[in-house]
């Protein structure tokens, strides 16, 4: 295994990564506004809810890097998402994470101001940013950081446990928020569609009624409306059963994988 790790580390170092590009406003300013916004948001999502003491946990890694005992390489935020970095070079990853935490901690207010400014100046561009996609990336990175801290020998596990636990709770919260956003979006869609459908049915019925009142005709139309609704309900039940069948199939497949 150590041989494999060395091989992957070499491979990683050979990759065309933007080496020595320490995180700073200057490096970010070079990017287009949409990318600036995305990177700064991602940074905030990665570091959000952590207490400054997280830096203390990472201190031994920073010291090892400074003394040359551990590989050092400045990573851009997006590099942390790649599985290779997470698997092969935990010290590099933690070094990058330490840089992120420090930068976010020192410049939190300025970053938020920049985000507001970019959004104000580029409303169309920012309206197209997919927050949930960023949250998904942030969750991957946060989990990678937490896992790496846990398995890095140079970090005192007992000392880190409580802070790490809080960091993981925040990550779960971020995930839940992301899931809620997706749920809310779909729920709004169903609600709005249902309201429009119902309004259409009631309007149609109102129009029937506004015409010359013929009781027999009205009765027939009531029956038609009932049949129409009943059919809609039956159709939906059919869809629900199809989904259920899909679920059952998935369960069967999962069980067959186990055995």
């Amino acid at each position, binding site marked *: 295994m150590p041989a494999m790790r060395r091989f992957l580390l070499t491979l990683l170092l050979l990759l065309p990564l933007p080496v020595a590009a320490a995180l700073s406003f200057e490096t970010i300013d070079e990017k287009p506004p949409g990318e600036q916004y995305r990177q700064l948001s991602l940074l905030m999502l990665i570091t959000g809810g952590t207490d400054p003491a997280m830096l203390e946990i990472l201190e031994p890694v920073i010291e090892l890097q400074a003394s040359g005992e551990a590989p050092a390489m400045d990573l851009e935020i997006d590099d942390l998402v790649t599985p290779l970095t997470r698997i092969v070079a935990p010290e590099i990853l933690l070094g990058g994470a330490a840089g992120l935490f420090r930068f976010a901690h020192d410049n939190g207010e300025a970053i938020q101001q920049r985000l507001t400014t970019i959004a104000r100046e580029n409303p169309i561009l920012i309206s197209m940013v997919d927050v949930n996609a960023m949250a998904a990336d942030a969750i991957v990175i946060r989990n990678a950081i937490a896992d790496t801290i846990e398995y890095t020998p140079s970090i005192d596990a007992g000392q880190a446990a409580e802070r790490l636990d809080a960091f993981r709770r925040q990550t779960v919260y971020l995930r839940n928020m992301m899931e809620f956003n997706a749920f809310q979006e779909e*729920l709004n869609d169903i*609600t709005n569609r249902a309201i429009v459908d119902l309004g259409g049915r009631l309007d149609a*019925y109102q129009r029937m009624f506004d015409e010359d009142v013929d009781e027999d005709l009205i009765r027939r139309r009531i029956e038609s409306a009932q049949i129409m609704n009943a059919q809609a309900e039956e159709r939906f039940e059919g869809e629900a059963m199809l989904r259920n069948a899909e679920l059952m199939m998935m369960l069967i497949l999962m069980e067959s994988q186990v055995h």
Partner: protein
Amino acid sequence: MQRWQLPLILTLFALLAMVLAGCAGTARGTRSSAFDGAQPVEVTDFSLSRAHALVVIRYPAIIHADAEEPYFHAFSINAIGGEVPPENRTKKVTTRIAQSVIAKSNYYVMSLYRELQRELPENTVLLSPHIVLWDREQGLYSRPILASEQIPSVLTIDFNVYSYPDPTELMDSPPVTFGDLVTPLLVVRGNRWMQPATNGLVLSSDPLLRASWDLSANSARHDLEARADFDENGFYRELDFIHFLASRNSAARDLPSKGLNESRRELMAVEVYPVEKILLDGALLQNLADDYASDPFVEAFVRDAGHNVKRLLNQIDHDRATFFTRQQALARFDPELAVAFLARSNLESVRARLQLAEALIEAERKFLAAQSAGLFEGAYLGDYGNRMREMIQGEYRLLEDRRDLAFKQNMTTAFAALALAGAVYAASASGAVTGIAMQTFSGALMLGSLWAMSSTMNMRAESAEMSENFLALIAPALERQISVQMEWLESKERISALGFAEFRNKTLTLYQARIRSLQADFSDDCEFRSPDLRGPGRWYGNCRDGRADGRGYGVIVDGSGNSLEYLGEAKDGLASGIGGAIRQRRGVAGATYYEGRFANGLPDGVVQVEEPGRRPAVREFRGGDVVGSVGENRLQRLTF
């Protein structure tokens, strides 16, 4: 008869006529309601939950054919404002009046809905139309047609208008809804945790007080028993007005009550709203069918009543008022989460799932708000509303003509006008227009004044003609609204209900696909005890060794009318820590609420006490006994 006797008899008759004129004078209606002068307020909702509605308005909308006879019977024997003689109870005119109460309630409730909807945040006012039913087991009752009452709401308002069943008695100035006269009946309530001392009842029309009180007490009892036995609560609260008609019990002397707008507002008692005949502004009724931009019922009553509702909304802690109704709503589709909710858990898995569940309820609220808006459009802005306005305008013009005529005839104006109101119902019920109208009118005259003896045939003919013209205008509208329009409403509501069922299926499927497991175990059957109440108790929430321990909700019902509910912290099966408790004692109207610190199952420390008929007070307790008064600043409140 001796010569000296004649002037004496005439004088006595004249005095009688003056007395009757006085009674009839009050029958004109009041221009200023008891709510008049209520200050306009802005509603501020500080609640944490977004799921709940602020107001649900219930009203009688439709009557099932099987329920018509029992309803007419109950309506005639349980009259508000007098006792209908047995011989008058079976007349067809009474059934027409009973029907008109439902038809006009359908219309006038929309004014209240529109005003509150306009003043309160979007999608927070819902309509809940009821169908009146009858069966052998339950007798006369009502049930909601739509799902609005399943949505947690801070306040629930029962609304209907009323007319006295016997038109021959209109001279006694009973309540009536005809033309420019409207008699509204109201009940305002919330969940019992909102105001435990009165089981959540905050305002009631005087005659409905007993019925509303009994319903609130029954509702509390059923809920407690269901929670104690871990059963589904099958209690549906029928309309308070229908319960009043069916229960024949209006004695309310022993109940904690207070007048409107009194300085005793802080008392834990039900505000009692007197029966009022509201007089609408005639200028707004003259052309009501064509110009209804300014609603006369809003101007005369609803606006001030709405201010009162908003004042109540500002006084109430919304999270406390809706805590248990939100829990019931959750239990409907996620029982596991509903128990965790009672434990008021801070766990992230509970919070996240609760966020999804509350979003679901919020979506249902939006859908039901759209349904309510649809009902409003049909019943107020649409064909139904147009016909009702035509009818009200016609009634008003007739009343005005009658008042003019009565004035010319030197007769008590309101007396003559109301006599004719009864005649209209009678005529439209029988079809014998002129005959019955005149008969009723003449009968009233004979009772009321001596001048009828000498009135000319011309004047009588004029009266008859006017009645005939009016009925030609009104009767078709009455007939149509009661038959076809009701069918229209029913079918419209059926479409709405089916639409909702379809919508709920979809949202529940989405919810079930998205939820994750709860990362904790909450029990629904741990032991909960109290030192001053026998009987097994049940605890929902955190437990240790099978006993209540940590946060949760406990209930004890001893089967003889005593009960205890507790929401808060517990230790070793007893209330210990910060909490709130409702204590119900056998034979005592209402309940006592304690909020603050508890130890070993009893109030211990600084506790606020709310008792029926008294002001809330903050007291220092030791082992369940009061040892002194303390400042409110030392009180630690329960967070709902």
